[in-house]
Each structure stands twice: as structure tokens, then as C-alpha cells.
């Protein structure tokens, strides 16, 4: 007879970068029911956003997430710009794409490193993070900080790129791409990687659509849905095509992210080559009034900002819906039936960002 055990996985666990608890009912080594427990890193950022002046909220929302901070700032700025009825200059749109894509690149590389770490491939973890460090250096050289780069402002961006910086950035990205290509056979074809990811945590496209899954997790299930296709900022002019894999398992999610790394480098390159001249900031005038919903593609998936202005310098309401919140239900369907030893890999495969989810 199978022995039933209820196992608390987390909130502190070596594989989890952030605290989430999964109460897992085990039957011998097989997973039965899974219940998530959230609420360990709630900081009340949405409420704090109502007390700040609206231009200062950019710095607040960037602190929602430690990895995709530029995307949060971008989404908030797009929402408030819509309320104020201002349009950022073309150069600012392109620079926003550059920094948002660099964030996606370092986020995906971080995730790949963590995945390799989760199944014990420490060497690959360190190799990938060494490549990631080059991206972090590019961010620090151009934006001034490694993660919370604070480049977005209402009406444009706060920093410009000089010609030398652009050529240096292109050179570093080329080097980064070269090193990633060298690692790619190991990332995608290695026996260890395939053994631990292929066929684990399968999510079919029907399930994915029913559960409202977003981002690379959705695209790995064969659904070509990426908000960059809507062409916000300058994405409409860069010829963006979403990357889709059909497998729906952890391996497919890993492949999507690996391919997106190269796509991201290509997008940055195109954006820098087409970078128009001109201003980088349109001064905002007046106070936001009305309601606006903005959806952008964060590294983990769809990020939604709902902003209500009431004609004062404070916002009436700021609502954030983050990708991990949409992906946790999928996790609860992926885990049952899997084996105990696969919990870390399957949990990581949705790229959980708990700070985003709880805000």
C-alpha cells in the first residue's frame, strides 16, 4: 500500500530563489495534490503607489521585481503616458526596447543557470552566469546600475546612448552570442539536461489556454502568443516573430528560453542599427485622469498594469498583474503525477517570480 505523506516544499528551499510554499501530498514517490501558499514577500507596493506622486512611482514599480525591473517601469510609463495623452519620441521607444530586451536576456540566462543548478549541473550553471555577467556589465555601463536601471521615465527615457557605447554594446553582444553558441550544444543536447527535463511536467496547448498561461511557458506548449507582437514601444518596427516549441514539457520551455536569448540579441542589434536621432524625453504636463490598461511582455510573460488617475498628482489605483500569478495554476497541473525528484525542475520551469506575484 502506498504511503501518504504531506511534504512542505519551501518556503525556504535550495532550489527556490524566492519564498513560495507548495504543500505536496506524496504517495510513495509520486506527487498527488499540490497546494500553493503565497504571502511571504508581500510589501504593499500597489497601495504605496497610491500615496506617491505619479512620476516617482516609476522607481517604486521597478522594485516590484528584481529581474525584470525595466519591464515594470516600461509598463507603468506606457500606462501613465496613455492617460496624459503624450507620445514618447521615437529614439526613446527604441532605447526602451534595447534595455527591456537586455533585461530579458539576463533574465533568461539567470533562469538557465538556475535550471542547470536545480538538476545539479554546476559547471553549466557557472558557464551561463559568466555570460550573463557580460550583460550585467553592459547594463551598468549604459544605464548606471546592474538590475534596477531606472531608465524609464514618464514621456521617454532618462539616459541616452553615445556612439561609442552603441559600438561597445554591439561588440559585447557579439562576444556574448559567441560564448552562448559554444554552450548551446550542451544546453540543448546534453544527456543530463535531456534526462532531467524531457517529458517532465507536460502541459498541452489546450490546458495552457484553459489555464491562461503566459510567456515562454505558453509558447513552449505550441501557442504563438507574445505581446511584443502588438508592437508597443518600437517592437512593431523591428520585425518580431514569436518563438514556439511544441513539446510542452520542461525541455521545450528551456529550448524556448534558449532560443529567445539569441532572438533578444538580434532584436537589440536591430534596434541599435535603426536607432533614430532626436530627443529622448517628452516632458509630461498635467495630471493623469481616466483609466488605462497596458500589457507588455516581461521575460516571464504577460505583465498588465491597470492605472486609474483622478486628476491629481496621486493615482487613484494602480493594479499590477504579473506573469507568475498566471503560471502558478499551470504548475499545479504539471506537478501531479510527476516524481518527487522532479519537483525542483518543474517548479523552476515556469520561472517563478514570487516578489512579482505578491508585490
Amino acid at each position: 500500500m502506498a504511503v501518504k505523506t504531506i511534504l512542505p516544499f519551501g518556503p525556504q528551499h535550495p532550489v527556490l530563489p524566492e519564498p513560495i510554499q507548495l504543500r505536496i501530498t506524496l504517495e510513495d514517490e509520486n506527487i498527488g495534490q499540490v497546494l500553493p501558499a503565497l504571502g511571504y514577500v508581500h510589501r504593499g507596493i500597489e497601495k504605496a503607489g497610491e500615496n506617491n506622486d505619479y512620476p516617482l512611482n516609476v522607481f517604486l514599480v521597478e522594485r516590484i521585481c528584481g529581474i525584470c525591473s525595466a519591464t515594470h517601469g516600461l509598463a507603468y510609463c506606457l500606462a501613465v503616458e496613455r492617460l496624459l495623452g503624450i507620445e514618447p519620441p521615437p529614439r526613446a521607444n527604441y532605447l526602451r526596447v534595447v534595455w527591456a530586451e537586455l533585461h530579458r536576456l539576463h533574465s533568461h540566462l539567470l533562469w538557465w543557470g538556475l535550471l542547470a543548478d536545480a538538476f545539479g549541473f554546476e559547471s553549466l550553471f557557472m558557464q551561463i552566469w559568466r555570460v550573463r555577467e557580460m550583460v550585467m556589465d553592459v547594463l551598468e555601463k549604459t544605464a548606471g546600475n546592474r538590475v534596477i536601471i531606472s531608465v524609464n521615465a514618464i514621456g521617454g527615457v532618462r539616459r541616452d546612448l553615445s556612439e561609442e557605447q552603441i559600438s561597445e554594446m554591439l561588440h559585447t553582444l557579439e562576444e556574448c552570442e559567441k560564448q552562448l553558441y559554444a554552450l548551446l550544444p550542451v544546453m540543448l543536447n546534453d544527456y543530463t539536461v535531456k534526462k532531467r527535463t524531457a517529458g517532465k511536467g507536460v502541459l498541452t496547448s489546450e490546458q495552457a489556454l484553459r489555464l491562461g498561461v503566459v510567456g515562454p511557458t505558453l509558447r513552449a506548449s505550441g501557442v504563438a502568443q507574445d505581446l511584443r507582437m502588438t508592437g508597443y514601444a518600437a517592437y512593431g518596427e523591428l520585425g518580431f516573430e514569436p518563438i514556439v516549441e511544441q513539446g510542452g514539457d520542461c525541455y521545450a520551455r528551456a529550448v524556448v528560453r534558449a532560443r529567445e536569448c539569441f532572438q533578444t540579441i538580434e532584436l537589440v542589434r536591430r534596434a541599435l542599427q535603426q536607432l533614430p536621432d532626436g530627443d529622448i524625453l517628452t516632458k509630461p504636463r498635467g495630471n493623469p485622469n481616466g483609466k488605462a490598461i497596458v500589457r507588455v511582455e516581461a521575460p516571464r510573460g504577460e505583465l498588465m498594469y491597470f492605472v486609474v488617475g483622478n486628476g491629481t498628482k496621486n493615482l487613484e489605483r494602480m493594479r499590477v498583474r504579473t506573469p507568475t500569478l498566471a503560471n502558478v495554476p499551470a504548475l499545479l497541473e504539471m506537478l501531479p503525477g510527476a516524481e518527487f525528484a522532479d519537483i525542483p525542475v518543474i517548479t523552476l520551469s515556469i520561472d517563478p517570480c514570487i516578489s512579482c506575484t505578491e508585490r
Partner: protein
Amino acid sequence: MPKMLPTVLGNLVSKPATRPHPYRRREAFARARGRIIFDVKQCVFCGACALRCPASAIRVDRNERELVFEPFRCIICGVCVETCRRGCAQMIPHYHSPAYTKPEEYYRAPVEVKEENQL
């Protein structure tokens, strides 16, 4: 595993990718947001920086002609630098070193500047 072999051999002969941090520090990047310093000789104590600081790390007393800055509250966003028309708030690329206490920095107007500004 042979695919990793060139990398492994390369790593054997190459220099370490990391550096022994406190003993050998990396040169700060020119545009890095290290920390904020105030050149109080330029300051007119208008309080624009304090008003716009997202972290409320700056307090300005106009009557006392005093500026109080809390470097450990500062998020180094650079809004004060963009706001200040006199070039008083400045960004330098060197980080604040870690500390056991979080002291505030007091900036008082020198007497001669006060007279000049009263004109």
C-alpha cells in the same frame, strides 16, 4: 561531455573569471550610479531635490540653510541630480562603502555664500 572539453581546458589555463573583491576592486564604470554628493557652496536651499526624492532621503531647511542627506536611504536614482539647477547634487560612480551605522550627512551653507544669495 566532450562538448564541454574545450571550455574546461580553456578554463584550466585562463585567468579566473572572478576577482578577490575586497583586495582588488574593479574600476567603476564612468556612467555607473555610485552615490550622490552635494556641493553645498552652490546650494540655494530651494528644496526642489527634497520634494522630488522618491525615497525621502533629502531634507532641506530653508531658514536654517541646512541640507540633511541620508545616504543609506538614498536609492541613487539621480532625480535630485536632474532636478538641481545649480549643479549642487552630483552623481559619482563610486559606491558608498558598507557601514555598521547609518549616519546622516549634514550640509550647512558657508557664511559668504549666504550673503551672496541675499542680494
